[in-house]
């Protein structure tokens, strides 16, 4: 897998492969590599989980993760930062996200990795649906993309508005 291929596939429906992520980020001037993997747990808030389905707005996600990588590289002065996220159905123990940082020293690698992972979780348009042993499912309570921003007043009021005729035609995509 070439560097460019990897750069363009931050969102993947196949099982995530660690080897190309490690090899494509190797640098002789970096003594520290910090890696995070988010794997599917068999429980959430005390409830057994059988599997997950992740969906993502792929084009927006590629763009936002690329921004997060650039911002992490600039803010923490690390030469390499890469994040990939899997979508589709994932079983227990499967890897949903890899984030990797390489830097000359370890302090900035740890700080940068933490930022890249937190930022991806808070800002990338990805949604996790959990499935339970009884066959039911639910979307996991998430983070508003505009983190820390109160919604504008006219949108807050909308939340209380009454249902009425909807000028729309339904369709599938």
């Amino acid at each position, binding site marked *: 897998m070439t560097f460019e291929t990897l750069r363009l596939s931050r969102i993947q429906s196949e099982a995530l492969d660690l080897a190309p992520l490690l090899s494509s980020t190797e640098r002789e001037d970096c003594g520290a590599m910090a890696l995070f993997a988010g794997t599917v747990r068999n429980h959430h808030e005390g409830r057994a989980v059988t599997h997950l389905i992740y969906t993502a707005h792929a084009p927006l996600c590629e763009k936002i993760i690329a921004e997060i990588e650039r911002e992490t590289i600039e803010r923490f002065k690390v030469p390499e930062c890469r994040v990939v996220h899997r979508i589709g159905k994932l079983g227990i123990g499967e890897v949903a996200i890899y984030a990797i940082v390489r830097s000359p020293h370890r302090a900035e690698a740890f700080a940068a990795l933490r930022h890249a992972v937190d930022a*991806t979780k808070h800002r990338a348009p990805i949604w996790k649906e959990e499935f339970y042993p009884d066959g039911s499912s639910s979307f996991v309570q998430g983070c508003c993309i505009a983190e820390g921003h109160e919604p504008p007043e006219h949108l807050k009021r909308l939340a209380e508005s009454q249902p009425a005729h909807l000028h729309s035609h339904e369709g599938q*995509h």
Partner: protein
Amino acid sequence: MNITIQFWGITARLAGTDQRALALAETATVADAIRLLAQDAALAGELPRCAYAVGADIVSPDHALKAGDELSVLPPVSGG
């Protein structure tokens, strides 16, 4: 003009569909589209927590829409 709404995450569940066509005035903004969507009681509660995107760009409520736009409704995210 007509635009297409793309529902993501829980909003697709609430709307009962991934996609909906919406008829708006020629001068409509994102806020106008949201106001119209909020007439769907199932969606109204979720919309204030959502972000909005046209194509691969996050847009603000005052963004002017144009015919044929695909407006994505992005509820709180839960990747990772």
